[in-house]
């Protein structure tokens, strides 16, 4: 009790145990999980997938510094990823050249830092005119800038390498931690290291005064002025830091793929990182992590199963916007909260109905899309899930689609009505 009187502020703050549990533990958990992976002897493909996930985690987290925590919607974030990556790429070539001088002594392991610096610089230059406004104007400027730089990427071949891009060889220069970075398993350790560092630093940022001010500016820029801070300056600083971390992930990508093309600066990856962050859930710190995980897996695995994987991605995105604006993280946390509140038996009913509804509607959609894709290809291919032949002309197919979708939607409506009635 004397503790409270001595420093009443301390009583309000979470206890040391809580702080450790909520903040430090997840990071340790992440590091441990990543460290344990090699023990399971994953295949090369698995390693490649994990590397891609690691890069995207940092990229998506950096994006959410702008969107979820700053309220700034950017359509051109890949510019900083790309510029960071290109800077790292050129540094890699300098290391390879081994002329003596600064770069010969610089380890490839440290290239993400080069990306970090380049991303920060780009953010500082481009951010200065962009950050005066928020909202739609900011989004439009980011779009314009992205298009400009994407076009410039193809023009200046000496910097960006034209269509073929710039390549490099990561097995050069001094080694760090005994890693030659040759085999993909060693690259994995490199990626895992920087993923943990990047995630830790970005999380740390949310605990700083600037991090809190950024959230305040997102909520109410007018009020921020009356606590003594300039919202434009807050946005600008956050923009630079977000650009820096995007550049960090670009540097990671440079070492991983050993090639960078102007395509990486374009609107495509900018749109992809937006999808990753939003689908994951912009209101939660782990949202973008989840989104990066899910979307990277979709990108590499789903494309093996179906031609229309981008369409599924689009449908997922729209579904999240319309029905689950908290994203995947929101769904998880919301379900957790419902479970805690109503107990397993209490929520199983609605949960079960909802899940069945989603699964059925999804199946109906899959049948529809796959059948249409094969029909439009014109090769006479037939969609055959589990040996069931579903031709585009047959009434069975269309009956199946209708029944599945109707049942799914009906179940979802029931679930929605139940939730509304309970006032949940």
């Amino acid at each position, binding site marked *: 009790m004397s503790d409270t009187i001595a420093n009443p502020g301390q009583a*309000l703050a979470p206890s040391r145990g809580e702080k450790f549990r909520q903040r430090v533990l997840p990071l340790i958990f992440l590091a441990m999980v990543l460290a344990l992976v090699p023990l399971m002897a994953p295949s090369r493909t698995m390693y490649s997938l994990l590397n891609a996930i690691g890069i995207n985690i940092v990229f998506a987290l950096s994006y959410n510094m702008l969107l979820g925590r700053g309220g700034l919607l950017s359509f051109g974030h890949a510019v900083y990823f790309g510029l960071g990556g290109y800077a790292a790429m050129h540094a890699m070539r300098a290391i390879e050249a081994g002329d003596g001088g600064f770069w010969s002594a610089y380890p490839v392991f440290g290239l993400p830092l080069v990306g970090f610096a380049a991303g920060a610089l780009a953010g500082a230059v481009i951010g200065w005119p962009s950050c005066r406004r928020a909202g739609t104007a900011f989004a439009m400027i980011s779009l314009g800038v992205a298009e400009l730089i994407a076009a410039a990427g193809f023009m200046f071949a000496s910097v960006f390498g034209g269509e073929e891009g710039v390549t490099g060889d990561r097995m050069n220069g001094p080694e760090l931690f005994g890693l030659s970075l040759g085999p993909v398993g060693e690259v994995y350790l490199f990626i895992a290291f920087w993923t943990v560092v990047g995630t830790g630093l970005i999380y740390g940022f949310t*605990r700083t005064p600037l991090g*809190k001010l950024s*959230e305040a500016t997102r909520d109410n820029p007018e*009020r921020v002025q009356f606590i003594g*801070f300039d919202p434009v300056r807050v946005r600008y600083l956050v923009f630079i830091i977000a650009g820096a971390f995007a550049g960090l992930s670009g540097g990671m990508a440079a070492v991983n793929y050993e090639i960078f093309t102007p395509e990486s600066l374009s609107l495509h990856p900018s749109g992809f990182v937006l999808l990753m962050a939003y689908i994951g859930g912009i209101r939660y710190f782990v949202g973008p992590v989840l989104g990066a995980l899910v979307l990277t897996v979709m990108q590499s695995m789903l494309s093996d199963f179906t031609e229309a994987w981008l369409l599924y991605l689009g449908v997922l995105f729209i579904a999240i916007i319309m029905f689950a604006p908290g994203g995947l993280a929101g769904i998880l946390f919301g379900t957790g909260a419902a479970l805690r509140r109503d107990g397993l038996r209490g929520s199983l009913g609605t949960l079960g109905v909802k899940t069945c509804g989603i699964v059925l509607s999804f199946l109906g959609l899959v049948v529809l899309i796959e059948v249409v894709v094969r029909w439009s290809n014109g090769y006479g291919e037939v969609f055959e899930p589990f040996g069931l032949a579903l031709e585009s002309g047959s009434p069975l197919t269309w009956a199946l689609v209708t029944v599945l979708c109707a049942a799914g939607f009906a179940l979802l409506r029931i679930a929605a009505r139940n939730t509304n009635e309970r006032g949940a």
Partner: protein
Amino acid sequence: MSESALAISGLHKSFGPAHIIRGVELDVARGERHAIIGPNGAGKSTLFNLVSGLFKPSEGQVLMNGRPISGLAAHEINRRGLSRSFQVSNIFSNMTVRENVRCGVLHSMGQGYSFWRNIGNLKAVQKKTAEILEKVELIEKAHMPAALLSYADQRTLEIAVTIAGGADVILLDEPTAGMSHSETDRAVALIRKATEGKTLLIVEHDMGVVFDLADTISVLVYGEIIATGRPEEIRGNPKVREAYLGEEADEQPIGGAA
């Protein structure tokens, strides 16, 4: 005592052809509690926006503690010691009560746009935040998200964030708007406690609050101050009665017991 806290001279503001503020002269002494009343549309909020830096004056000057502040950016003026609340609650709705006040405290505790320090480790910030929460009696609700507070509590939080920075000139824009009788009484007591020793400029419609709190009252009508004085003087002032009640109400003095 030589300088007034706020000295407004010859202030004009037009928006295109609409001449809203037409030459306001106002002097607020240090430590004074000064209320501004007037019919709707008189320009009270515009006046506040001009003084606090959200609008730039078309003409005229505002001096705070002898130094000019008109034309400065709002956050600059805030840093010089002027803070304001808003008619519609302007808080950080996605943050908790404690985080709201903590943000308000940051600048006065010397924290700039820093990103290398953990905010949890700033002991002085924590202490001040807790003090303010105690003062406004919101400490029980410290961890509630601001958006979930009741209306009256949101207004209280608004005041808390306003005084958090330790400003010595406080502008309150209709702080008791929409409150019930008991909530208003509590709010008035809170305002009195929170602005002890500071200069207070308050816009209010509730005459009870005005006569309770204010040392001096100014009446703003059509962008001009038609009368300034102690509450009793304003009560009996015929020009004020005319502005509020129209020309016929000559016989009746304005409400005996507020």
